[in-house]
């Protein structure tokens, strides 16, 4: 999973075309992208749409679990969705969500409390990944979002470490300037470089850029293939490929790259 696309839940044109943009996951949004007066309308629309379709990796961002969220889970839990994206995640919120569903969960880390209790939030059963909510987090620590996201430095790196430790996806915050592809590219390259396993997006035009950057390069695939072949015929723990030392961590990375190639082939 390298790209998640947020799709406004009350827009039929966007809802029904979301699958064509190549995102590895779709997040139908009932929260920030839907006005208060249309929450009921969006819920009805998504319910009827999801009855007619069956796609992999479809999530719904619910509203606050203590307000509309519970009713939303009850509406969608019997449908063929992967799970829910949980806003304003905290241990308390996750405990409440778990009362109503056994589907996969992606908590959004968007408060100082969530940053500090990230590991406890991620340890809940069925958490498949955690998503950094950069806009809300910046607001909650009373800073302005910058192009280089320096204000998110600690939360971003901590998310990578905690998710790697727990074996779940680390999903970076959306890049909200939809007219700035150049900076988007730099930002996504940074996400990949620090170990984020995916990037989320609020605009379909950003998905090909994210996928292209996250896709293993031809050089990486060729080297990984050589490593795996050499590992099969080498009994010793350490050997050499193209003049580079190969040991267990390199073999594991090679396997991960070839697994990503298979995942991309599915998309």
């Amino acid at each position, binding site marked *: 999973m390298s790209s998640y696309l947020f799709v406004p839940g009350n*827009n*039929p*044109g966007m809802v*029904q075309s979301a699958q064509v943009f190549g995102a590895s996951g779709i997040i139908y949004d009932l929260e920030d992208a839907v006005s208060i007066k249309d929450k*009921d*309308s969006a819920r*009805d*629309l998504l*319910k*009827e*749409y999801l*009855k*007619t379709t069956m796609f992999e990796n479809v999530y719904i961002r619910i509203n606050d679990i203590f307000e509309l969220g519970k009713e939303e889970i009850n509406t969608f839990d019997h449908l063929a969705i992967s799970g829910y994206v949980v806003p304003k995640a905290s241990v308390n919120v996750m405990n409440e969500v778990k009362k109503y569903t056994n589907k996969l969960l992606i908590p959004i880390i968007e408060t100082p409390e969530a940053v500090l209790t990230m590991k406890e939030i991620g340890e809940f059963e069925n958490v498949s990944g955690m998503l950094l909510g950069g806009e809300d987090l910046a607001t909650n620590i009373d800073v302005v979002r910058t192009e280089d996201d320096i204000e998110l430095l600690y939360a971003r790196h901590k998310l990578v470490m905690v998710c790697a430790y727990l074996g779940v996806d680390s999903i970076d915050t959306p890049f909200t300037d939809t007219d700035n592809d150049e900076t988007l590219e730099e930002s996504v390259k940074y996400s990949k470089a620090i170990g984020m396993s995916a990037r989320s997006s609020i605009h379909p035009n950003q998905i090909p850029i994210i996928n292209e950057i996250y896709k293993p390069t031809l050089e990486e695939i060729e080297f990984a293939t050589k490593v795996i072949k050499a590992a099969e015929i080498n009994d010793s723990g350490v050997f050499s490929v193209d003049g580079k030392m190969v040991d267990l961590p390199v073999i594991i990375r090679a396997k991960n790259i070839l697994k990503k190639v298979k995942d991309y082939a599915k998309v």
Partner: protein
Amino acid sequence: MKTSQAGTIESNDTLIIVSPSDKLIVEISSIVFDKFGDAIKSVILETLKEHDVVCKVVVQDKGAYDYTIKARLTTALRRAHNE
């Protein structure tokens, strides 16, 4: 029941207005009426039957699929009874 509406007149959507009536009235205007007018009416009638409601329904369709028409009518009916 009070007059209520749901949906929009944006592309792929449909605006549905329901209002009290002793008899069933369905008025449809659609950019695809010639080809899909009967199908739209059929979805409206089926949905009204599911909700066991007799009322007036005015549909301004902008090329919505069946699921959208059903969803917008369902929302309009709930609003008509709840608000």
